[in-house]
């Protein structure tokens, strides 16, 4: 893999000499503008002019000594009104052009940038590759005859979706704003929530061909600089032709590639990203997608919903408890059902055993096959309903789930108890707020049913050991995946299986090693503060 430079390096003496030589000879084979306008235009036409959406508008500045110029932009990516009103109209405004500075020919382009154009963002550049990238990003390039610098103006403006409530993470109480596909809007939304001068937004370009903008957003002085540096380094290392979605980055920067579990969180919710940044995490915002990545993350956080923080804390406790119980059921219920029914029916209460035996009478498949087939059917129905448009998708869900299931039971193909178990498991799996984690658990269910069929409870215990060892070995940007439980971080338990009231959340989670540990000032002499910060521990920390 080609290694990219992390920092911009100063140009070497040899490179400067070569560039000067190129300028003098008018050689355009390199990547710098030359004073001859025709050569520059020819170069650009060869590079991007083959496409009909790239416009080359020729124009002449009506100065005492007329200067031919060419305006280059991509139709559809620019706001045409901006070009017409604030570039062309400004350039034709004679009063200004007849003024004294017009005679200072050497600095004409700089003067136009500083005194003529009414554009909020404009810069002079001579590197052709950079100029092409910017033009293809929706900016407008003005090339002047006799000058080896181009004027690049921000005229970006294209059709975009408004700010909607994220469909995948809807809440009963809480803000109903989500990200959209425009990076700048997304970073602006975060900025609107965090009006702190320490909020940093660092934009990187990733993708050899798409040259997508990717922004690292974090709070300086709160986020751990090592995590920030690591995230930036991993992003810079990516050498791929295109970044279609943040999931591409997610797969490329995650700590462990061969695992079913996501180790980076993705969300569409602004409040979630803001909360994460305030906790000392780093957000990776990618252009053209509303899904923002958050690093580092622990396993349990995939089961936290944004809403947990908007309801009162006892409610949050209950909601999380239900979610974690659902996680357990969604992972183990079908396999436990197979294991107990096949190998240890003596564990099941007698009446239930009788019911089970009765309900399975006449079913042509062995139990594990029945469960696997049902699981497969549920997955097919889910996939079909997700692909179809809204109302039709719901219909498929009802037809597939209810009518087909009922018909299968009546036909004696499956037992009612298996239907109950599989349906309950499916419902439980939908309680996971993060789709990626829900899918991982669903995938795990299939091998677990097979293991239960072969090894019963013993097999399930062995699989659990493997899963535990596997997940304990995972890191998310240096943070143990099972924290705060493994390794035990007692102070972070305040926001884990449940959450304590906000007034008790004095410190940020230690697991993410934030620079600024204090989240709020506790009341002087508060018992809670005393509990959170023992002088002995502070001493220990200092020692470390």
């Amino acid at each position: 893999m080609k290694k990219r430079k992390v920092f911009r390096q100063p140009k070497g003496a040899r490179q400067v000499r070569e560039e000067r030589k190129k300028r003098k000879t008018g050689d355009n084979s390199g990547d710098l503008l030359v004073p001859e306008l025709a050569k520059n235009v020819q170069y650009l036409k060869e590079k991007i002019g083959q496409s009909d959406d790239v416009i080359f508008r020729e124009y002449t500045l009506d100065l005492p000594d007329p200067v031919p110029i060419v305006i280059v932009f991509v139709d559809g990516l620019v706001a045409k009104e901006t070009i017409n009103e604030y570039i062309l109209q400004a350039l034709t405004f004679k009063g200004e052009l007849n003024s004294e500075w017009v005679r200072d020919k050497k600095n004409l382009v700089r003067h136009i940038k500083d005194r003529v154009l009414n554009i909020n963002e404009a810069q002079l550049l001579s590197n052709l590759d950079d100029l092409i990238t910017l033009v293809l990003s929706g900016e407008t390039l003005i090339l002047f005859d006799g000058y080896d610098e181009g004027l690049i103006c921000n005229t970006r403006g294209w059709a975009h979706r408004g700010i909607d409530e994220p469909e995948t993470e809807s809440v009963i109480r809480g803000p109903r704003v989500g990200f959209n596909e425009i990076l700048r809007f997304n970073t602006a939304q975060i900025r609107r929530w965090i009006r702190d001068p320490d909020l940093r937004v660092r934009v990187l370009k990733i993708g050899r061909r798409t040259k997508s903008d990717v922004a690292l957003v974090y709070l300086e002085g709160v986020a751990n600089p090592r995590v920030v540096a690591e995230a930036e380094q991993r992003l810079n290392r990516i050498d791929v032709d295109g970044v279609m979605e943040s999931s591409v980055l997610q797969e490329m920067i995650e700590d462990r590639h061969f695992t079913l579990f996501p180790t980076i969180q993705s969300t569409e919710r602004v409040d979630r990203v803001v909360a994460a940044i305030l906790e000392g995490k780093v957000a990776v915002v990618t252009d053209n997608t509303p899904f923002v990545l958050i690093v580092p993350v622990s396993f349990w956080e995939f089961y936290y919903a944004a809403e947990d923080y908007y309801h009162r804390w006892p409610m949050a406790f209950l909601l999380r408890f239900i979610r974690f119980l659902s996680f357990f059921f969604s992972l183990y219920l079908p396999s436990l059902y197979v294991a107990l029914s096949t190998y240890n029916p003596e564990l099941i209460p007698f009446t239930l055993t009788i019911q089970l035996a009765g309900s399975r009478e006449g079913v042509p498949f062995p139990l594990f096959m029945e469960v696997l087939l049902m699981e497969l059917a549920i997955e097919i129905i889910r996939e079909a309903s997700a692909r179809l448009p809204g109302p039709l998708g719901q219909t498929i869900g009802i037809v597939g789930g209810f009518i087909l299931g009922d018909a299968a039971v009546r036909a004696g193909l499956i037992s009612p108890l298996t239907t109950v178990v599989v349906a309950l498991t499916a419902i439980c799996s939908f309680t996971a707020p993060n789709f990626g984690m829900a899918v991982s658990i669903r995938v795990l269910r299939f091998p677990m049913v097979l293991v239960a069929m072969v090894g019963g409870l013993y097999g399930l215990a062995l699989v659990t050991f493997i899963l535990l060892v596997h997940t304990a070995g995972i890191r998310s940007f240096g943070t143990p995946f099972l924290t705060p439980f493994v390794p035990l971080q007692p102070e972070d338990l305040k926001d884990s299986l449940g959450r304590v009231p906000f007034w008790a959340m004095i410190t940020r989670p230690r697991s993410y090693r934030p620079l600024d540990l204090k989240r709020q000032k506790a009341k002087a002499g508060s018992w809670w503060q005393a509990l959170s910060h023992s002088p002995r521990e502070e001493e220990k920390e200092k020692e470390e």
Partner: protein
Amino acid sequence: MKKETLFLTSRQIILLIMGLSISGGTLILPGRCARILGAAGWLLVPAVGLLFLFGAWITARLGLLFPGETLIEFSRRLVGRPLGVLVSLVFISFFFLILPVEIRILQEVVNISLLPRAPSWFVTGAFLLVLSYTASVDFDTLTQVNEVLIEICIAVALLVALLGWRFFDPVNVRPVFSGDGRELTAYWEEAGMVLAFTGYPLVLLVYPFTRRPREVSRATVWALVAIVLMNTFFVLTVLGVFGHGETAGQAWPGLELAKAVNIEVVILERLDLILVISWLSAIFTTCFLAYFFVAFGLARLLGLRRRAYLPWALAPLVYYLSTALNNYFVWNRWLAYLSILAVLTGLVLPLFLLAVALLQRWLASPAHAEEEKE
């Protein structure tokens, strides 16, 4: 991101020692105590525990003298290369030989409670595969997994013991020596009980991974105190519930206690299986730790950079040894031999190495040099 070395905390060290000590043997410990001392068998646990507490203290003292090194390194410096390698091999062999013994217990427990007709190759083979995969992890993962599993086991064991107090009869545990006058050779059969206390030699391999060596030595002693207390409570409960006669006749008194305290619930008919499954975790943690330290020690001894493949390479040997223990008598004899090794690694060798280390220090000290001059 380069994985940061997370230094072991005192709590993690305590749990590591408990993880290696608390295992399948705990389930048969009450039977052994009852057979040796009858109704007063529970007193045997603190008595033997006290002896090994001394061993733990010596081991901790020894480690404290060489905080940045493992036994593999400092033993060579202390007693010379050949003897040092031999000492290291004794320790590694001790950890290694725990494996077939524990796997045999696992096979019995699985056959009794979970899969009555499962062939031994399936139970042992599947477990060894899982073990070989898991033992190739790094130190942090090892401690983290142990942290979770051993706490669950301890909690379940204590719960079972506490529930057992409903049937506790103090007459059954009167501290009068009511042994049945067994011959000394018969006690040899019960020598395996010392294995319930001898997990602490592993600290000699973890000192370099700790930030405060002094805390390690304290943690070692505390771990042993916790083990002694827990085992005493467990043995006392079993003896109190069944009486020494019945306990002595049971193969798995721990499992019998779980069956006795069963509470009928709506979802599951028998709750003793919860103890069995949680005890699988205890056996797993013991084997996991032992296997890890075998690979770790061998890698250090042989100067290998990677040790991930060592557990896989050793798996056939472990399998062969575990199948060689084909009946109770062979297994029990094996346990007795292993107990000798445990005494060697837990008491004799640490005492010898400590004496050598202190002697060397004294010889190298300026006071001694002055004495020599005089």
